[in-house]
């Protein structure tokens, strides 16, 4: 039961369509390489639940049989020659790196 909505007082979407659990949001945060502090989890969880309940309007849209649209311009492949173009200004590229060494990005040990 979806009502026409324009502000949150008018939202009437019923029960949580897909209930998100605490474990799930922590899993999603992990996939996103984000850390949620213990005191943040509840807030993000209730925000996410509220937004998903709203977003669930799409499940009632009359889209039976419609194709998906990925981008708004007509689907077409754009080809160009595979030519190497060298960006020569290494210095200005590397100046943004938090740490660098001998013209290279420096990162912590991986293995």
């Amino acid at each position, binding site marked *: 039961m979806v009502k026409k909505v*324009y502000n949150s007082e008018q939202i009437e979407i019923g029960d949580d369509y897909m209930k998100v659990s605490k474990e799930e949001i922590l899993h999603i945060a992990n996939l996103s390489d984000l850390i949620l502090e213990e005191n943040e989890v509840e807030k993000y969880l209730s925000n996410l639940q*509220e937004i998903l309940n709203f*977003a669930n*309007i*799409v499940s009632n*849209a009359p*889209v039976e049989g419609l194709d*998906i649209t990925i981008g*708004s311009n007509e689907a077409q492949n754009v080809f160009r020659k595979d030519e190497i173009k060298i960006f020569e200004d290494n210095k200005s590229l590397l100046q943004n790196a938090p740490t660098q060494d001998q013209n290279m990005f420096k990162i912590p*040990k991986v293995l």
Partner: protein
Amino acid sequence: MDITELTVHELQEKIKSKELTITQITNAYVDRINEKEKDVQAFVTTLTEEAKKQAIEVEEKINKGEITGEFAGIPIGIKDNMCTKGVKTTCSSKMLENFISPYDATVVEKLNNENIIDLGKLNMDEFAMGGSTEYSYFKKTRNPWNLNKVPGGSSGGSAAAVAANLVPWALGSDTGGSIRQPSSFCGVVGLKPTYGLVSRYGLVAFASSLDQIGPITKDVRDSAILLNIIAGHDEKDSTSASREKVDYTKCLKNDVKGLKIGVPKEFFGEGINKEVKESLQKAIETYKKLGAEVEEFSLDIAQYSLASYYIIACAEASSNLGRFDGIRYGYRTPEFTNLKELYKKSRSEGFGAEVKRRIILGTYVLSSGYYDAYYKKAQQVRTLVINEFNKGFEKYDVILTPTSPTVAFDIGSKSDNPLEMYLADICTVSVNIAGLPGISIPCGVDSQGMPIGMQLIGNKFCEETILNAAYTFEQEVKFREKYKPQFKQNA
């Protein structure tokens, strides 16, 4: 004469007739920034000293005959998500607080080719995610009409700077309304071009299938002029369209006789503020008086568009913002024990709450088990929205709606309620979902003196139609002659 009150085409005339020099113009803007920026807080980075120097150089070159060009020496402001070589591009985020781009965005290159002078980088919601510019990491920009109100967003700095005469015109970007809604809130003209008309190369990506750069200006003619400068195919952006060059000022005919305007009744529903509705009704009457054929019709897509917009935009953002990992550029956490922890802590400390919220939502709707229910459905809704607009454009040349359901709201009144903030985009997002052009122009003020915006939507690449419709209305109503920002402040 107050130089900063003039539009760009008026400045051009005065340069031509030698009434004004380039240095006079730039100096007037620098003085204005020094006077008013403390109230408006529109800039993340000001380039006032650099601009003054550049104005002298440009003037010398013109005098020596080394350069010509009708825009040489005109100043501009640029939203801080467009890369400017050698100048910080922060996206109003702690993540990019110290980022200096090694290259210019294509639009910036085009401005440089015209010897247009950059007065600075303008404030925005962090990574363009928001509708009030309150989500900037650095500062809250204030609405020049009432300093206790938001300027809208995410291009709030750009719209406020144009309204407050801190810049003669500005560039903004629009993913779900981020040019049009702040333009509406600040009583200026904002154009979101058709997806693909302007290159996105060097625009920090938020949602790549929706993002588009466009002009924010004092009037419609300036909008057409700036679009002339920035439009065009770019091999560095494969989604940019190859089309014949158009002079968008040629379409400004001050005539809408026989123009077919469709008014979708769903965009005038119960959630739209009464005074906004009344002002739009008056605008409709004006169009009728001017000889346009106005008709009500049904376009029942607003809520589907909004829901699918937040799914698609967040999904794309969660992917686009994956690049911020604290390695090659951007914020890096000071303390970490291994690479994974470096990534996670840098991202968690570098992004603000709204950005994290959208990354989490985007990752959720793309994750296994929910992809079909949310993301795929949203993409089908996108097809539905395009089909419904196509039906509309079979009958009408222009679709007319409010730009925003309300006028500018109080600072702090929505910033803690993400969904409430999202609902403010209800009138604008469908235009991005379908990749259409849309322009917001002021059509009146409410009882508190806050500007109300009207949105005109055109079919793909029909910028000329909506520009002429907007221009004709503007010539009739003369909003700028009647109303000016008052810099009001509550005690």
